[in-house]
């Protein structure tokens, strides 16, 4: 058992930390449009500094980083409060998938531009009647001469309003009784007349996701990933790439807990710090145990991945645990602010980020596979319980 980093890993950390000190933006714009160009600039700065897609091979602009270096990368980004990646879908999902199964032409066309943030990507997965039951999608792609015409509706499309490209699932044929067959993945150009994007307002007031209406939107054969009718396998391999992103969530949880400790020491009610209240202190000790447990679980799964070369099914536990715990922790953080906790924005008793993060956390147990879907996966793949009845 060993929790230390090698000298080489520590040098990597130092290099990144120094780079961040010199390049991290100091002020974040509030206004929506300015914020988006701020994030795009940040993505370009990262790519130019060689700090985007670090695990990728050098020929695609990466630095061949090891898994441990990727962990350090997440730790340092969280530590520095770096801006979020505006091209998360592109870098963590589309890029690695194209490198694995894309054509040479696709790699050439897309990879560099998504790394620099020149092209922002979104995912065209969910539909009004295909949420957790993703293979029930109805959006259709029909061959019309040498082009494909796409019709249907996508929903919960994060970054859809700013995206240039969409990693789209569409039905290309009907196989009775086998819904996951006959699906194809298209790389759709969002900047065309057949694509209409309508923003959806989230419960926290933000507009991060969208409805996407497709009316005779056009794709070509060159936009297909993998084979026609075999998109489900492509989608599964993309989801495996998504897992790597969980590291950032674990370290964010750790940081939020530390912020919560500081808050309970600093915020006073009737002249007393919150942590002086035995009930609050007890709950804090409980949250400490559970957040440490989540982090240590992550390290244990990481050890398995390092030893076996690939993540085991146990790593699906991390997402469920971290998202549920984050939600509970933020709920507690608002609750202990007492009656004043209902106030936010400029009237927040401490810092409106607590209220905002709390509301935002409700999305984390839904997006990327609901907690219920995660439980099905863990139950079936890790514990070997019988599969759910599926139509």
């Amino acid at each position, binding site marked *: *058992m*060993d*929790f*230390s*980093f*090698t000298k080489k890993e520590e040098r990597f950390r130092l290099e990144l930390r120094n780079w961040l000190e010199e390049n991290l933006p100091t002020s974040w714009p509030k206004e929506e449009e300015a914020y988006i160009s701020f994030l795009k600039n940040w993505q370009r700065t990262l790519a130019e500094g060689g700090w985007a897609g670090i695990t990728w091979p050098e020929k695609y602009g990466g630095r061949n980083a090891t898994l*441990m270096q990727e*962990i350090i990368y997440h730790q340092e980004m969280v530590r520095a409060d770096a801006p979020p990646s505006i091209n998360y879908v592109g870098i963590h999902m589309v890029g690695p998938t194209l490198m694995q199964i894309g054509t040479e032409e696709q790699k050439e066309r897309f990879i560099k531009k998504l790394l620099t943030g020149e092209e922002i990507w979104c995912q065209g997965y969910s539909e009004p009647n295909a949420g957790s039951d993703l293979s029930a999608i109805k959006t259709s792609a029909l061959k019309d001469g040498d082009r494909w015409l796409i019709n249907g509706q996508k929903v919960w499309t994060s970054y859809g309003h700013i995206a240039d490209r969409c990693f789209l699932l569409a039905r290309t044929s009907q196989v009775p009784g086998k819904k996951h067959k006959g699906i194809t993945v298209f790389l759709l150009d969002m900047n065309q007349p057949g694509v209409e994007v309508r923003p959806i307002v989230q419960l926290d007031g933000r507009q991060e996701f969208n409805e996407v209406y497709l009316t005779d939107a056009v794709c070509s054969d060159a936009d297909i990933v993998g084979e026609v009718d075999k998109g489900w396998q492509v989608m599964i391999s993309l989801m495996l790439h998504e897992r790597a992103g969980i590291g950032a969530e674990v370290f964010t949880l750790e940081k939020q807990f530390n912020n919560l*400790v500081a808050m309970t*020491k*600093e*915020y*006073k*009610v009737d002249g007393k*710090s919150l*942590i*002086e209240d035995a009930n609050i*202190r*007890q709950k*804090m*000790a*409980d949250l*400490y*145990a*559970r957040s*440490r*447990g*989540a982090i*240590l*679980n992550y*390290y*244990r799964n*990481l*050890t*398995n991945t*390092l*030893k076996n070369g690939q993540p085991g099914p*146990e790593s699906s*536990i991390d997402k*469920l*645990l971290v998202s549920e715990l984050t939600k509970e922790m933020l709920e507690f953080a608002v609750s202990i602010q007492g009656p*004043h906790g209902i106030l936010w924005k400029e*009237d927040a*008793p*401490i810092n409106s980020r607590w209220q905002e993060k709390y509301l935002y956390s409700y999305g984390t147990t839904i997006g990327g596979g609901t907690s*219920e879907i995660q*439980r*099905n996966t*863990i*139950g*079936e793949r*890790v*514990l*070997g*319980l*019988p*599969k*759910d*009845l599926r139509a």
Partner: protein
Amino acid sequence: MMDFSLNEEQEMFRNYVRKCLNEAGQTMVAREFTCGNTSEFIKLQKKLAELGCTGITISEEYGGLGLGALDLVPVLEEFGRAVLPGAYLETMAFVVPLLEKYGTREQKETYLPEIAAGTRSFSIAWVEPNKSYDPDVIECQAVTKGSSLVINGVKTLVPDGNQVESLLLIVRTDEGGNGDGLSLVLIDVNEVTDMKTLSSMDETRNVTEITLENVEVPMARVIGEVNQGWNVLKEGLLYLHAATSSMLVGSMDHIVEMSSEYAKIREQFGQPIGRFQAIKHRIVDMKLDLETARSLSHYANWALDTNQQDKEAAIYSARTFATEANIRLASHNIQNHGGIGFTMEMDCHLFLKRARFYENYMGSISQFREDVSKGLGWSYEKPRFQLTSK
């Protein structure tokens, strides 16, 4: 280099212990024990001692293997899986580390080789009738008489007092307050004036009450400094609670296995009940609790061995989480089994009762949480600065 796993030797030792417990019939030993038949348990104890289980943390000089807390982990997990009776925990994870650190040469020579050989085990005599674990309420008194101590008092909730050869007794040797004036004394069970077995919900561990009337033992039986016993005991508790967490993890491991296996074969409405999400999702949540407890307990024992700064917080957070999770899991396990889970026939009840045994064992959850808080230095008297609040 990051490696959060038990090493090959530790896993290999686990396999030896598992094999030995399999041959003994796993929970059958505990079941026989609850019926008053201790012979299977005694036989098994001998085999486990031959395997080296009783020497793990004892230095080689005294016949042990000279290993650390983390090396006990796989053994404790296996014992927890089998709900094994006996005072292994108290002996190996409390008295041994204290003897190793505070014992005189004579004390070490007297006790350690016999513990390593499996011929002597220890229990802890701490709490008194109708009292808490607070050090300042201890009344059992030891008075100096020449080079002897004369002890009078009653100690209750002594785990397996009737299964062990010796006791570590905490007595008052001076007036106290804040844990002062207490001393730890090593006594033999046959020196005790009277011992009775109390009725306990968990019949896999005997709970006894001992009476000491003018029991005279040599001063040389005091371990650590006179009147400084509380500090010594607190240190021993770090080992004890780290080890307890591991034993609880073992029980949880078995519970999750029981529930999943049952859910795969038990059919209702024409299908295995594990297909229903009400059951499936509950078992998944149990699995999450198990893995979290395992991570916490492995880290706690590592932190103890390597004397990490956060060891106190690590140990007590493992202890609180594993304790509560174990009760939760044992309860869910009964529900998952339905009617048969409510019977003596299934093992479900053994795990529930054992879970309750360890709930308030040598401390309470709320106290452990305060220990976490202390370990993290959450000093709330002096906040760094005060925020302006409206």
